[in-house]
C-alpha cells in the first residue's frame, strides 16, 4: 500500500516537473505543443460549438434598423457587394495605369489578384478571451494558406488575417487586435478614389482603431466608410471595409485624427467568408 502511494507521488512529481519544463521552453522548442491542440478541439467542439451558437443567437443583435426588413437587408448586402467591386475596380484601374507606367520604364510588376471565396464557421475562440484570436472550421484540407487568406463578413467587411493553419482548422487574428500592428486605410470622402485620403490606423484596445490622416485630408466626417489599402495585406483584402469614422479630431499641428469603429465586431461573428488568393506569391509583403 505504502509502495503504491510512493509510486503515485513520484509520478505526480515527475508530471509536475515536466509541466514546469514545458511551460518554460522557448517557442522554437515547444512547437510540438500545438499538435495536441487539434485533438483537443476535436474533443470539445461537439459540445462547445452548439453552446456557442445558442449563446450567439440569444445575444442582442447590433442596432441596425435595416435588419428588421429582409428585403432591405438583402438590398443592403447587394449594395455593399457592388460597392466593393466598384472600389476594387477603381483600385485595379489605378494599379494597371501604374503597371503601364512601370512597364514603360522597364520595372516588373505583380500580376492581378485571383480570389477564391470559402465559407467557414467560427468554431471557437481562445480559452482566454483576452488573446482575441478566432478559430474557424477550415484549414489546410480546404487550401487555406496563412498570411495569404483573409476572413471577411459577407465577403465585404474585413475580420482579420489567417495566421496559423492546421489540417481542419485555422486561427485568425482580427485586424483590430493590438498585435495586428499598424494598418493603412483609406477614408472614402467622395464618389471616386480621387476624393479619398489615407490614414495610418492602430488598435486602441477597446475594439476601435485610431490614427492620423494624411496632411492634405479634407472633408472627413463621422459616418464615412474606411476601406483597407495596405500593401502589407494580401491583394484579396484590398478595399474591404474596415469600418466607419465615428470621431474626427484635430491635433495641435492641425492634422486630423480619426477614430474608426468596425462595421462588424470580429469577436461577434459566427461565420466568415475566407478570401483566398489563388497564387501564393500574391501574399502580404509583411
Amino acid at each position, binding site marked *: 500500500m505504502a509502495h503504491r502511494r510512493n509510486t503515485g507521488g513520484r509520478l505526480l512529481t515527475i508530471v*509536475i516537473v515536466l*509541466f514546469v519544463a514545458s*511551460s518554460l521552453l*522557448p517557442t522554437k522548442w515547444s512547437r510540438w505543443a500545438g499538435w495536441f491542440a487539434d485533438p483537443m478541439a476535436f474533443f470539445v467542439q461537439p459540445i462547445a460549438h452548439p453552446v*456557442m451558437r445558442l449563446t*450567439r443567437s440569444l445575444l442582442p443583435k447590433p442596432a441596425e434598423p435595416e435588419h428588421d426588413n429582409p428585403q432591405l437587408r438583402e438590398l443592403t448586402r447587394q449594395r455593399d457587394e457592388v460597392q466593393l467591386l466598384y472600389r476594387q475596380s477603381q483600385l485595379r484601374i489605378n494599379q494597371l495605369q501604374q503597371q503601364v507606367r512601370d512597364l514603360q520604364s522597364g520595372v516588373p510588376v505583380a500580376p492581378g489578384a485571383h480570389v477564391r471565396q470559402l465559407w467557414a464557421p467560427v468554431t*471557437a*475562440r481562445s480559452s482566454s478571451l483576452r488573446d482575441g*484570436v478566432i478559430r474557424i472550421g477550415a484549414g489546410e484540407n480546404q487550401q487555406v494558406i496563412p498570411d495569404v487568406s483573409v476572413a471577411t463578413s459577407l465577403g465585404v467587411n474585413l475580420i482579420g488575417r489567417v*495566421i496559423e493553419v492546421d489540417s481542419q482548422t485555422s486561427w485568425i487574428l482580427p485586424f483590430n487586435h493590438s498585435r495586428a500592428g499598424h494598418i493603412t486605410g483609406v477614408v472614402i470622402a467622395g464618389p471616386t478614389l480621387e476624393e479619398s485620403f489615407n490614414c495610418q490606423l492602430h488598435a486602441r484596445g477597446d475594439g476601435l482603431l485610431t490614427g492620423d490622416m494624411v496632411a492634405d485630408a479634407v472633408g472627413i466626417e463621422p459616418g464615412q466608410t474606411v476601406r483597407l489599402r495596405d500593401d502589407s495585406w494580401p491583394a484579396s483584402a484590398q478595399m474591404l471595409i474596415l469600418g466607419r469614422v465615428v470621431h474626427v479630431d484635430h491635433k495641435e499641428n492641425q492634422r486630423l485624427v480619426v477614430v474608426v469603429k468596425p462595421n462588424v465586431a470580429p469577436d461577434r461573428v459566427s461565420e466568415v467568408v475566407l478570401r483566398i488568393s489563388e497564387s501564393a506569391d500574391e501574399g502580404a509583403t509583411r
Partner: protein
Amino acid sequence: MNWIVFFLGSWVMMGLELGLRDGLQLGATGAAPSFVLLYLVFLALSAPRSTAVWTGLILGLMLDLTRAMPAANGLSVVTSIGPMALGGAMAAYTVTMVRGAVYQRNPIAAPVIVALAVFLAHLVSIALLATRSWYDPSVTIVATTEVAFSALVAGYTALVAFVVLILFGRAMPLLAALFMFDVTPSSWRWGQTRRMGSAR
C-alpha cells in the same frame, strides 16, 4: 472518485467554458467566468488530496490546449502546455488545504474559495508566462494588467458560483454521489448541510 463521471463532467464544463464566454463576458474587458475552475473547486472540496491535484493538472491541461496566444509579432499563435495545468494543480492543492477550515453553513464560504482558487491558478500561469517572456520574444505579457484581469475573472467566477449554489444547491448531494464522494454532512462543504443533517 469516479473517473468516467469526471471526464464526462470535464467535457460538459469545457463546452460551457468555451461556449458561454461570448454571452457572459464583461464588455470589452473579455473577463468571463471559468466553469472549468469552478468544477475543479467542486471536486477539490471533496476528493482526496492527490486526486484533487491530478484533476487540477488534467483540467488545467485542457485549458492550456484550448488557449492560443497571438505571438508578439501577430504572425502566429503560441500554445503552451503547463501554465494553467500547474495553476490548476496549485489551486486544487490550496483548496484541499483550506477546506477543513471552511464554515460549512456559510453561503459565502464556497464562492470565496472559488475566488481564491481561480485567482491562484491564473497567478501561477502569469508567473510562468512572465518568466518565459524574459527570453522568448514570441511571448509578451504585461503582468500587472494580467493580474488585475485575473482578479476580475476570479470575482466574476465567485459570483457565478454563488448563483449556481442558489439554483442547484439542492442537487449537489446527488452530483457528489455520482462522483462517489462522501456525502455525509460532516464531509459536505457545499452548503445545504442542515437539510442533509435533518434527513439523517
